[in-house]
């Protein structure tokens, strides 16, 4: 993919949580990149490591139990791991902002939504209180909420409106990178459509790059340019949206598509992936997917698949695609 214009480059990132029950390898040897204005979808089921990846980029992994054990996170060419706390604070919310997985808890119930947006604006831009509130009004209007409601409290809004307020806060500082962790999962479809539409428009308007974390392949098809599919801490397939949807290569990706009912076809039965998610502290040897994989070979339980670029810009971690010789 366009390598010289990368806004964010994640190289060989590994993040572990050390718990009483053992070590959780939440992110293993991850390599991803995002160009400016690009949207990357990060997809996976519960516990795959999506939120951990996002917190890793933000340098907000709780330590202990979490620890970034290896890798680099280059943002605008500079390694975030080498930044001081003060430098990181400037980057967070200024250049990189995040919409957290549980939007309802990320709003302060005793502050008006206007104050909450203005607070972000003031923190990152040299404006006075009146200007900040004006800017808050503008942001509210951008997300489709009348500016006159700046003095309302979160509980006075519906779920979909609150989520739009959260987006307004995340975008108030005009970030270069927005990380959105399941921003629409809790919303009804018609409200989800409103919010996704809004995010697409704002992204185009400000040329924001985005990481969209979701478990919904429909949402990815709707808004993303590239996709990374995660399973048990590993990005097992990573390519552009077109290739992922037209020729998925990893058996897990294929299994995911088989598990969702296709709304455009009539099918009697779904083709689920057999078995269950592995225990996070006891990931299977070799390929972590091998106990559930319909294509598993003898070697799959012994050898860890490498990240193979099967064609330019299409990466797969599966032994089926590793050259036998």
């Amino acid at each position, binding site marked *: 993919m366009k390598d010289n214009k990368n806004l964010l480059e994640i190289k060989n990132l590994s993040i572990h949580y050390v718990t009483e029950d053992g070590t959780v390898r939440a992110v293993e040897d991850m390599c991803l990149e995002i160009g400016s204005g690009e949207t990357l979808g990060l997809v996976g089921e519960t516990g795959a490591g999506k939120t951990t990846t996002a917190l890793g980029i933000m340098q907000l992994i709780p330590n202990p139990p979490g620890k970034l054990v290896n890798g680099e996170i280059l943002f605008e060419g500079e390694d975030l791991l080498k930044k001081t706390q003060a430098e990181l604070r400037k980057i967070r919310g200024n250049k990189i902002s995040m919409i957290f997985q549980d939007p309802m808890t990320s709003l302060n119930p005793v502050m008006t939504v206007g104050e909450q947006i203005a607070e972000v604006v003031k923190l990152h831009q040299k404006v006075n209180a009146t200007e900040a509130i004006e800017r808050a009004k503008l942001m509210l209007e951008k997300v489709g909420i009348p500016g006159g409601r700046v003095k309302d409290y979160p509980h006075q809004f*519906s779920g979909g409106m609150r989520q739009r307020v959260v987006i307004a806060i995340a975008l108030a500082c005009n970030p270069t990178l927005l990380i959105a962790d399941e921003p629409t999962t809790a919303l*009804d*479809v018609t409200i989800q459509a409103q919010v996704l*539409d809004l995010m697409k428009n704002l992204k185009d308007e400000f040329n924001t790059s985005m990481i969209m974390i979701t478990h*919904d392949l*429909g949402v990815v*098809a709707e808004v993303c340019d590239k996709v990374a599919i995660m399973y048990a801490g590993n990005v097992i397939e990573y390519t552009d949206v077109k290739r992922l949807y037209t020729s998925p290569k990893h058996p897990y990706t294929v299994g995911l598509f088989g*598990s969702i009912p296709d709304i*455009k076809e009539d099918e009697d039965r779904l083709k*689920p992936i057999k078995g269950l998610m592995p225990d996070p502290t006891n990931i299977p040897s070799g390929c972590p997917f091998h106990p559930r994989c319909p294509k598993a070979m003898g070697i799959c339980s012994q050898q860890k698949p490498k990240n193979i670029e099967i064609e330019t810009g299409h990466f797969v971690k599966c032994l089926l695609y590793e050259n036998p010789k």
Partner: protein
Amino acid sequence: MQERLLEVRNLKKHFSTKKGMLHAVDGVNFFINKGETLGLVGESGCGKSTTGRVVLRLLEATEGEIIFEGKDILQYNKQQQREMRKEMQIVFQDPFASLNPRMTISEIIAEPLVVNKVFSSKVDMQKRVKELMETVGLAERLINAYPHELDGGRRQRIGIARALALKPKFIVQDEPVSALDVSIQAQILNLMADLQDEFGLTYLFISHDLSVVKHVSDRIAVMYLGKIVELSDYSSMFNNPLHPYTQALLSAIPIPRIDIKRERIILEGDVPSPINPPEGCRFYGRCRYRQDICKNKTPELKDMGNDKYVACHFTNNLKPATV
């Protein structure tokens, strides 16, 4: 002619709240044929779960009739109600919250058998429990495990086994797979389809996930703010939605394909409050086609032929709003 197992007529459930009367279910009509699945979809708070619960008399209806096998179950006395409970069961969304954490798997599955004194011998009952576990794909070694030791998919299997224990004819499935990961969701959906075939079960399948509902249902009812706005067989629902709300709802589903480009109808505004709703169409405030009459007169669910029912004043004659 197919045999009707259940018919619901003008069903209402109102809750009195501090702010006024909440019309959770407000005059709902539908029927379900033997062996079929009726999907019930709609957005959060539109009254799906309340409908399911009222139909099973887990909540008392405010008004209406619930005809099960030809008899109005709202007229049943206590004894008849107990008998009815065996025929009509429910599977809940949150498998964790709905299972008693202090009971083992076998105790949970056996509970309805104990309460209804189905078996006089413990051995027979254990046999039935094991049979049920096998039916839903739970390994026998889990018989003495506790719910917290199991993952969501297995917990949902327990809920299903318990619902099947008394050999019901009818099961309300209230978002049975919504809490599960997609790969596990597919396993449970397949299981439910198998059970339906094997035991000739009839389902009311409640969900907000339209792809799932389309997959499992023979016919689908779309609810909006306590009322059914459209009801038809699944293919006509998806290929030819007539109600403006159904049209918007279907257009909003994110489809996991990139070869399909659709015109998306973005609805303005939010769902209004169900408390003391005014006369007129409930969808009025968000409808692209609203006219004056819509504000003043509540549209009835009209028979459009071919078993399709729509509640809109301008079905097949929608013109851009003038008000």
